[in-house]
């Protein structure tokens, strides 16, 4: 295992899960994560960049629409192009779709209300470096907390996600069944998280960092951080 920090959490003005991501990362891996201000133009070669949840720039326009112009985004793209890992959670996922590192876009929730609650997810793909610690078809629980989480994409894009096995998480019932229209937010094909073609950029609306310690009501999120940490460092935690 390398001694230096492998992960950094990006901080946009309006990010509000930046500390949470770093805290969960440290709780699970024992390693501190760096914070990187959005105005940075040159980043060290972090193995993992986390784009946290929140309301970057207030998100009074489309979520993430302003954050994509932040100076640091060029570095995010550079590292992603070189195969480094990028994880976008909630607002981070929205930003990744705006940047174009992931396809699709997020619409207002179906009921037009912000929703904060635990949801069940089915892990659809455990062959990613983010989810390799889960078992096939695992039913896990992460919280959601968003007002704009209805994943949408054109039919060609959807087919590609389906055919290339790039849908990583789907909203499910407690019994693990995925039912059409069963997502809490109106997401197309009940999609909660997707990965890029190369397998190094993951975006998801639910918050793994919020259930990574048992005291908070569950630790299903732990496995995601363990998986990626193990992939990067070869060390088990």
């Amino acid at each position: 295992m390398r001694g230096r920090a492998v992960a950094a959490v990006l901080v946009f003005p309006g990010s509000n899960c930046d500390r949470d991501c770093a805290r969960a990362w440290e709780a699970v891996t024992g390693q501190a994560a760096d914070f990187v201000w959005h105005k940075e133009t040159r980043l060290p070669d972090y193995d993992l960049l986390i784009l946290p949840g929140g309301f970057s720039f207030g998100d009074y326009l489309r979520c993430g629409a302003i954050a994509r112009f932040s100076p640091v985004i060029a570095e995010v793209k550079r590292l992603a192009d070189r195969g480094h890992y990028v994880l976008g959670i909630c607002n981070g996922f929205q930003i990744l779709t705006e940047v174009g590192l992931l396809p699709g876009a997020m619409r207002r929730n179906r009921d037009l209300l912000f929703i904060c609650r635990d949801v069940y997810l089915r892990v659809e793909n455990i062959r990613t470096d983010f989810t390799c610690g889960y078992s096939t078809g695992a039913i896990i629980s992460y919280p959601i907390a968003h007002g704009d989480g209805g994943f949408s994409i054109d039919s060609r894009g959807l087919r590609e996600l389906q055919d290339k096995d790039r849908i990583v998480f789907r909203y499910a019932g407690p019994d693990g069944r995925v039912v059409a229209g069963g997502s809490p937010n109106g997401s197309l094909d009940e999609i909660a998280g997707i990965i890029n073609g190369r397998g190094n950029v993951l975006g998801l609306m639910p918050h793994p960092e919020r259930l990574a310690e048992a005291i908070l009501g569950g630790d299903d999120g732990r496995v995601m951080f363990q998986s990626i940490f193990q992939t990067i460092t070869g060390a088990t935690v």
Partner: protein
Amino acid sequence: MSDLDRDRIDPWREHGLTTAEYELIIQLMGRKPNYGEMALFGIMWSEHCSYKNSRAQLRKFPTTGPQVIQGPGENAGVVDVGDGWGVAFKIESHNHPSAIEPYQGAATGIGGIIRDIFAVGARPIASLDSLRFGALDNNRTRRLLNGVVAGIAGYGNCLGIPTVAGEVYFHPDYQENPLVGAMSVGLVRVDRIFKGSATGVGNVVMVVGAKTGRDGIKGASFASEELSDSDTDKRPNVQVGDPFMEKLLLEATLEILDRGLVIGLQDLGAAGLTSSAAEMAGRAGNGLYLDIDKVPLREEGLTPWEIMLSESQERMLLVVDPIRVGDIQAVFDKWDLDAAAIGEVTGDGYFTVRKGQEILARVPAGLLTDQAPVNFRSVREPAYFKEKKKADFICEHEYGDVAELFKRLLASPNLASRRWIYEQYDHMVGLNTVGRPGGDAAVLRLPGGSRKGLALTVDCNSRYVYLNPRLGGAIAVAEAARNLAAVGARPLALTNCLNFGNPENPEIYWQFVQATDGLAEAARILDIPVTGGNVSFYNEYNGRPIPPTPTIGMVGLLDEIENRLTVDFKVSGDLIFVVGKTREELGASEVHYLLTGRDEGEVPELDLALALRLNQFLVVAAGRKLLRSAHDVAEGGLAVALAESALAGGLGVDLKIELDVSPPALLFGESQSRVVISVRPDRSGELETLARSFALPLTYLGVVGGRDFRLVAGGLALVVPLAELADLHQNSLARLAAL
């Protein structure tokens, strides 16, 4: 004609001053105040800023204790939670703005109280809300409810401060004057608590954050008037919130505090620069001048007094050493915020407003902050107080189908699950929320790997306060304390939000005096000091007052967060008990109101000594991991408390209750100081011993298990499938609130 030489008949009335107050000002200043000075007095002597109608009464509250680090008078109270940490907390109302513009009114209410918390140097970690609306069966109430909840969500969620607990009640007398109370809680190192004090002559006064615009002019005096039909044109008096700006301001402010760049600070709330600057000067016993030409403005053409009175949100006033100004500007620059030096602390004791070199107003600061006349209002016991005590309660045989009534209660606006509201609030951000909304109190973990837990609640039953203000005021404190004890926490301190009608009406003032006397007595006996709060009078609409609503916000501490208690029944076969005494008490009850639409009857008795023992018992029992669940018995009585525990755990119950009261009182009566608990069968002996040692009545009720809510008492049998109750309880509010 300029603002300054206006000379009209009784110009002081425009500023809300009485003739007597105006004459007092002349006497104190030794001359006539000019227009601007009159505006200063009008604002600073308004009820909102001076508490002139309540100060005498507030002095009765106990405010000290070994745990109290900072009591009333500063931006927020602070209590010691050990390990070098303090908890700063305060509640405040934003009622009138929310009546006019619910989204912005509620949003800026949250924003304002959060600034009070970071003004003491604390990082806000949680918000709570206390809401009152009219009956839900009309469109206006639904619009207000949806708007207020969306406003709290929109602001708090964006800031990333979780809204972890709250309360909401519906009653027709709040129809046009809803109540929106917001409580904020923050964490601060005990050696890094900042004060809102302008110390050090020669230090620089800075305004930081958002630019100043024309919004919210005269909000403070607006808050000190009654609402009427013509008030829709007061929409410009309502401030507009920008949570993104607040987030930047929060981070930038905490950064400069952390780096030790600031001497004193205060948020700009009601009456904007005027009250913040005057209060900071007043607290330090210093003078201070402001040059309004230096205030960054959002738009052109603001008059000097618009600048001084603007309630533009997301601004703070700092007092700093002159050599730090550059460092501070650099930090605010990073966050793309303004930070402008606009004045200086002076040794002359005068609050001076300048425009360049021209002096617009010059008043001794102490006159503004400390010399507002204290009003000892007259009181008169209202006729209703005795009349309403008499009530004919529905007899057992008139109840009809008890199962139907039980279901109606669980689905009624005041008792249905609040899930529809708290799921719109991000209640988890921050990773501290261990006990989520839906229980008796929220529980948060504390930093640095601490084993302790912080418990938070807000509560008030205004029907009790209306029918018996003194007893109702005491019950509000006891109920809040019980909420904390029911999660296993020791109450530490409380903040209050005292919402009443027009204090110039002797019957309203009687309510106020009685309720605060009751509150003070309960706080003394339960040993819970008051560390701050807010008074909101003039909550009336076209002369009709709201029910008196002294809301209590309370914080408590668990020594071991792992020992916290939750409401849910957990294991089939566990034994269920009620601790406390169930009396023949149906007065002032929710069931009586549901059946008759009337607020009447005797308010339940309160034995404060027993209440204290019950709380102590719960803390000890939690520490010994003796209980599997605990749930406070409140509105709706024993049956509702049992149903809530069953629903939370997804487990049925089989109960056979033998108590010496009528079945209606047994099921739905609201006798105070009771808690429903469940316990492993092999530990019931230990439970009985412990209850006896605290001299607490303990009654066995039945066992956990099955899929039904099954209750037999006397000749009455109540059997309802849990699944049916679950839908009614969980989803009813969403259905009732739908626009």
